[in-house]
């Protein structure tokens, strides 16, 4: 193998953006520290940090997009991006794992322990049952109780997740018919899931929304692979819309919980796990939606070809990741 046949790897010029990012995080860290300690300057420093962060993100991603569009990235850089996105999502999975582990621990160990014989010595009369706000709860609250057919819903969620995952096989192989069948079946499951309800209920609708968005996203992916930009834009926009509606529903759910159920972040360990898990998930949906919006904007300005669209694929991976996290949340936070 001589040097001619070997790819040259793209190494960027010196860049000012990282240090700007660092300054922004210093401001954010300082501002947040001040803010949580009720120092007047806190919100201002935090806001400034955000502004600097936005400037950095625009500049940095702008530079990357420019480099990509001017053909500076070859196959090697492409596979570097693929590896890195995969590992990044793995780190996100582990972040959520910390909270899922916490939920497991409080439900299986700490709350039952407080109600055990030994627990009674410290907290006489405390009955260990989930949901729980702990032995020292002062206010009553209602939990997000499940009002559907649990087993059916769980089976439906697992089936839909499996169907979506396997649908990527036919897509890679270019088998339109098979892909349509699998995506269609996923949608059918979504309908079934809705039918499993005895009353209309936000988390189920949200599950349906995210599953449907995964279907539309996969169809968008299929379209770009066929070079059908119009259809790609349409389905990408549809995905984004479903995501935004999801977030809207979540806002509604929180308002409902606070105003009608008296379920708050401070409602003991149930409130803490409920809001932290759904809240961090919602944050990730927001980030995913921003990614999709950027992809839509890029596609509208003519970026991406049928062979080169990894930025979109990365956003799609991320979207699927938040989707799967939701399915797990739906099962362990709401149903079980």
């Amino acid at each position, binding site marked *: *193998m001589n040097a001619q*046949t*070997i*790819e*040259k*790897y*793209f*190494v*960027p*010029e*010196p860049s000012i*953006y*990282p240090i700007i*990012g*660092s300054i922004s*995080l*210093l401001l954010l*860290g300082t501002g*947040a*520290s001040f803010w*949580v*300690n009720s120092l007047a300057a806190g919100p201002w420093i935090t806001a400034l940090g955000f502004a600097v962060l936005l400037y950095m993100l625009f500049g940095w991603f702008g530079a990357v997009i420019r480099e990509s569009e*001017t053909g*500076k*990235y*070859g196959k090697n*850089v492409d596979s*570097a991006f693929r*590896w*890195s996105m995969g*590992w990044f999502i*793995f*780190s996100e999975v*582990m*972040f959520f*794992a*910390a909270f899922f*582990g*916490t939920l497991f*621990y*409080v439900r299986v160990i*700490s709350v039952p322990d*407080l109600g055990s014989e030994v627990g009674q010595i*410290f*907290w006489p009369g405390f009955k260990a049952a989930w949901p*729980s*706000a*702990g*032995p*020292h*709860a002062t206010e009553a609250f209602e939990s997000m109780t499940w009002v559907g057919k649990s087993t059916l819903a769980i089976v439906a969620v697992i089936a839909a997740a499996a169907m979506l995952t396997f649908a990527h096989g036919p897509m890679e192989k270019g088998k339109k018919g098979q892909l349509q069948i699998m995506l269609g079946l996923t949608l059918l499951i979504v309908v079934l899931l809705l039918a499993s309800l005895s009353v209309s209920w936000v988390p189920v609708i949200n599950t349906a929304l995210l599953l449907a968005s995964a279907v539309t996203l996969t169809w968008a992916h299929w379209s770009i692979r066929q070079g059908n930009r119009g259809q790609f834009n349409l389905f990408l926009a549809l995905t984004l819309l479903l995501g935004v509606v999801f977030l809207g529903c979540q806002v509604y759910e929180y308002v409902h919980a606070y105003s009608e159920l008296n379920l*708050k*972040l*401070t409602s*003991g*360990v*149930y409130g*803490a*796990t409920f809001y*932290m898990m759904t809240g961090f998930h919602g944050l990730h949906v927001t980030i995913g939606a921003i990614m999709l919006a950027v992809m839509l904007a890029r596609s509208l300005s003519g970026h991406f070809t049928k062979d080169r669209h990894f930025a979109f694929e990365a956003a799609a991976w991320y979207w699927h990741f938040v989707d799967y996290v939701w399915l797990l949340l739906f099962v362990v936070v709401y149903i079980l």
Partner: protein
Amino acid sequence: MSAVPHDVAHGHDHHDDHHHGPTGLMRWITATNHKDIGTMYLIFSFIMFLSGGVMALTLRAELFQPGLQVVQPEFFNQLTTMHGLVMVFGAIMPAFVGFANWMLPLMVGAPDMAFARMNNWSFWLLPPAAILLIGSFFVPGGATAAGWTLYAPLSVQMGMGMDMAIFAIHIMGASSIMGAINIVVTILNMRAPGMTLMKMPLFCWTWLITAYLLIAVMPVLAGAVTMVLTDRHFGTTFFNAAGGGDPVLYQHVFWFFGHPEVYIMILPAFGIVSQIIPTFARKPLFGYASMVYATASIAILSFVVWAHHMFTTGMPAKTQIFFMYATMLIAVPTGVKVFNWIATMWRGSMTFETPMLFSVGFIFVFTLGGFTGLMLSIAPVDIQYQDTYFVVAHFHYVLVAGSLFALFAGTYYWLPKWTGYMYDEKLGKRHFWLSMIFFNVTFFPMHFLGLAGMQRRVPDYNPMFADFNELATVGAFGFGLTQLLFAYVIIKCIRGGEKATAQVWEGAEGLEWTVPSPAPHHTFEVPPVFEAKGHHH
């Protein structure tokens, strides 16, 4: 592969030894060159090492005699906490990343790290984190004093310094994750043609696995401290039994991060030592494949042993037994490694230049730390040792004589490649012997102190412990001063000396020794073709 280069466009127009682009301070601030960034990592970690060292010496000064002499107990607790945080996150971890930056591209034959700009950000996130950490000494209430493990409920009660530490940890976590992704991708994606995974230098393997551990557990630490933050300020009760939570839950989440973290700090050290010993024994590494498998099994096992830090928290006996045996199991792959290093030296034609001295010293002293670890892993016995100086002795044997000595070894080993000059061998050897002696004078007595029941993290103690404490303090100051000698040797070497050849060491093998010394600013812009020598077969 096609006959035309795909990545035709390249940021640099000229490819020669010289640095183009911004000069002066901007060169460092905007750097996208792995060597520049590696240098910054190393300098930063050395500054942090000295800062953490000053804190440690203050602690030792207070502990020189029973009673309170030098600092107030509150400040003492802040110092123990910050000493731990600064050394772990500021000194040891960044130092290894510095080595990764400098050496991985040279070892795998890549022009740079996979994501050069992100690499810069990984580094430049560290100073803000350090500012938040060190700055927290000066806010009302001072720095966090909850211990480097930041256990709840203490960490839920601290002042503003605790919040600054939490955000510093978030920032350092982001830095570590980005750095680790960069390392994984560089190793997986940018190896020179011909360098299969099982042919790459062991340092690359240990870093690959370390990076995987980092990506897996840094987010978990972020989750843990985030829950502390919300418990502190937003009324959640994760770690409060009154609300159905549990302070012990914090320990579980923390140590799920914490135990892999200690391997994050030792696996790259194993890698460095595995590069050095074959060079100075002039023999290929014994049992290359078993080294790889041992490293991988340590990494896997490290996820299922965390509760050995929690034997006194009242876990069910079954759980204790599981974690006890799982922990003991880790000694097996660790033993394989020690065996392989010794077998590499067996009948080698050895010479003992400073890197080799530190490596052999590492084997001796690190293994002692491994043995005390084994003692601690025995659940019924650990109940006596928990939170005593015996634990302090254990982790300083593995972290100072382990990680730090390997960092010294690596520095001497590659310094000629970095600077182009040989360091002063006589002073280097002196640095080794002084470090070795003072290290043991400092930490060996701590075993006895711990066994006799002296608690860690307390500024005062029973007068019966006074003799050993005096000895330890004398040793600590000796060790601290010795490190100024290290700084002197390095500065002297940067400024000049005997010119280093490309190969530097007679027995050295690998791509990094095929480029001139000092390594030019840009190397391997076209991947070299790698042919494995006698290595690993």
